[in-house]
């Protein structure tokens, strides 16, 4: 039993309270501790990836209790990969939050950030269904605080909607767990898999209800149509860096679906393909509505939000195949879409900081127009899935994985047509933001060189009465730019090393589609436990 397996949960759980109790009023100290904590988390995640690369499922028994009774953490390739993805995204976005000064606009940003990471990491690691619920609640509570960070009427209103929607989702989660417990009599995921597999086919009616309820819960988190209504307004009103971090939150939902419906309810098992039959049409609608939403919106935050919904659609199409090939395409695309969505939110926030608001309309030429435009251009290519970036490879993999599916015509048509819509929508947004502004006012571009003055005004939707910070404390613009470049270089690396990344994704999928290994790792060889 390797104790570092639980480190991704313990580390933020220690640093978060430390920040609140000890350095509440010292932003510099908060920043140092928070960034060091996240960097350590990334280091641990890297180590856990090496550990998981051996191919064995690592089990951590909390309190050394025997498996179906005590809570276990499971580390496999997928969990390790998601941990690393979380840590890298959090590190980059945190740098942005510091560089842009977002973490100064309210209290407890860094503490909430650490609690958020604790919840996300715990959800990826746990092997117990009720424990998963608890970690979901931890990440949600932290996200409520982060979502309304900085305050303001619109943000609070959107926050109330977000909380209400997710409370309903949590209720549904408990209902699903209750049904599953009453049918199987266990909450340990590996044990549940055994009992589900042993269940006679004529007794599975309640089990199917439980499985579909669980799928609905994860679909709420992943913002799958028709349960996506919370996302656009939440992401549009959340602070930019928080929206960027939320890119991993939707992936928690996707992770839940992959985990439960490969381990506990495999497609060739007793509940048959009831979940896949529901997921695939939902995924197609998600993709279509996401990409059409990009075209329809006039708000940059919503634009990035709909782009995130679209990428979830593509991802779910691959997941809904429930084949090793589909899952490996999903894993690859998941890495790409998390980085791309994070980068897009940050770039939108940069635009907002330079223009004063986030509406997509003609305005003065913003300072640093060329740089932001270049970043936007790169991120947009990645988001829509055009060559040369990993989005293209990802979409190609998804199409390849669905080539033999019965609904292949629908899937390919949706992917290709919506890609065209997204290309048009994002290039229209880009040309309005970065090019047409020159027609409106060619003068200010030369009159006001990119001095940091407008950038000091901070993020979008500043309240009119918000004090402008003193100049000595001015946000480090270069740090903000560097963090976006970091995320984009992640996408470039994913493209350049597509071969190794794909082999990793294939190994992950192969491990996921062999659930017996999980069951035996958790339930066998328990000598020395209590």
């Amino acid at each position, binding site marked *: 039993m390797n104790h570092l397996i639980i480190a991704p949960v313990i580390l933020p759980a220690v640093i978060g309270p430390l920040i609140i109790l000890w350095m509440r009023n010292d932003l510099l100290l908060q920043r140092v501790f928070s960034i060091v904590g996240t960097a350590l988390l990334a280091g641990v995640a890297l180590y856990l990836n090496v550990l998981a690369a051996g191919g064995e499922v690592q089990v951590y028994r909390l309190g050394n209790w025997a498996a179906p009774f005590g809570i276990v953490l499971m580390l496999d390739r997928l969990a390790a990969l998601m941990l690393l993805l979380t840590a890298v995204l959090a590190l980059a976005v945190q740098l942005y939050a510091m560089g842009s000064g977002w973490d100064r606009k309210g209290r407890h940003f860094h503490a909430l950030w650490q609690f958020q990471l604790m919840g996300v990491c715990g959800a990826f690691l746990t092997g117990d269904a*009720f424990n998963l619920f*608890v970690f979901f*609640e931890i990440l949600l*509570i932290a996200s*409520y605080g982060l979502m*309304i960070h900085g*305050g*303001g*009427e*619109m943000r*609070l*209103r*959107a*926050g*109330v*909607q977000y*909380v*209400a929607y997710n*409370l*309903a989702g*949590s*209720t549904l989660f*408990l*209902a699903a*767990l*209750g*049904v599953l*417990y*009453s049918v199987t009599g266990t*909450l340990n995921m590996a044990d549940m898999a055994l009992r589900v597999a042993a269940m006679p086919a004529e007794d599975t009616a309640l089990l199917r209800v439980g499985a579909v309820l669980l799928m609905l819960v994860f679909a709420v988190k992943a913002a799958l149509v028709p349960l996506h209504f919370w996302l656009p*307004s939440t992401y*549009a*009103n959340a602070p930019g860096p928080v929206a960027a971090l939320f890119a991993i939150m939707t992936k928690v939902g996707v992770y839940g679906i992959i985990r439960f419906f490969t381990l506990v309810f495999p497609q060739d098992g007793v509940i048959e393909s009831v979940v896949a039959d529901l997921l695939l049409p939902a995924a197609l609608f998600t993709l279509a509505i996401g990409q059409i939403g990009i075209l329809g919106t*006039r*708000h940059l935050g919503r634009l990035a939000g709909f782009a995130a919904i679209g990428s979830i659609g593509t991802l779910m199409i691959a997941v809904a195949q429930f084949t090793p090939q589909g899952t490996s395409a999903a894993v690859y695309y998941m890495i790409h879409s998390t980085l791309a969505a994070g980068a897009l939110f940050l770039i939108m926030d940069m635009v907002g900081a330079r223009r*004063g*608001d986030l*509406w997509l*309309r003609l305005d003065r030429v913003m300072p640093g127009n060329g740089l932001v435009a270049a970043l936007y251009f790169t991120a947009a290519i990645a988001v829509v899935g055009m060559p040369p970036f990993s989005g293209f490879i990802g979409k190609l993999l998804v199409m390849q994985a669905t080539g033999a599916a019965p609904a292949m015509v629908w899937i390919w048509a949706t992917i290709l047509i919506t890609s065209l819509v997204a290309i048009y929508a994002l290039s229209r947004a880009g040309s309005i933001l970065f090019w047409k502004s020159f027609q409106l006012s060619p003068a200010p571009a030369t009159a006001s060189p990119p001095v940091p003055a407008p950038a000091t005004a901070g993020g979008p*939707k*500043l309240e*009119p009465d918000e004090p402008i910070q003193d100049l000595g404390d001015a946000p480090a613009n270069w740090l903000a730019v560097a963090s976006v470049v970091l995320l984009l270089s992640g996408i470039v690396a994913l493209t350049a090393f597509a071969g190794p990344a794909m082999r990793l994704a294939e190994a992950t999928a192969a491990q996921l589609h062999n659930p017996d290994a999980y069951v035996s790792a958790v339930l066998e060889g328990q000598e020395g436990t209590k």
Partner: protein
Amino acid sequence: MELLLSSAIGMLTAAGVYLILRLRSFAVVLGMTMLSYAINLFLFSTGRLVVNAPPVLQKGVEVYTDPLPQALVLTAIVISFGMTAVVVMMALGAFLEGGDDRVDMPRADRLPGDGDA
């Protein structure tokens, strides 16, 4: 017993769903509370209904009730209580900032209105 419990869960759920579909945040919060009560009762029943039986091992006792759902309900109660407090605070914040407690987003969220700079 079964009829009483299931009808209570059903009525609480129905009232909760009706209330969370209302337009005012106070009604929504009430609805959330009802829903979480319904779910707590439901979780309680997932270990099957046993009356007057201890959950912990004792000498000379043959019939037990399942202790796990009780632990789950305890966790769920704590979490839903905390969540209710959070949503009340946020609804209060939105009410104080915005002047009304409507749940839907105002027009200024979708279209550039007079509120923005």
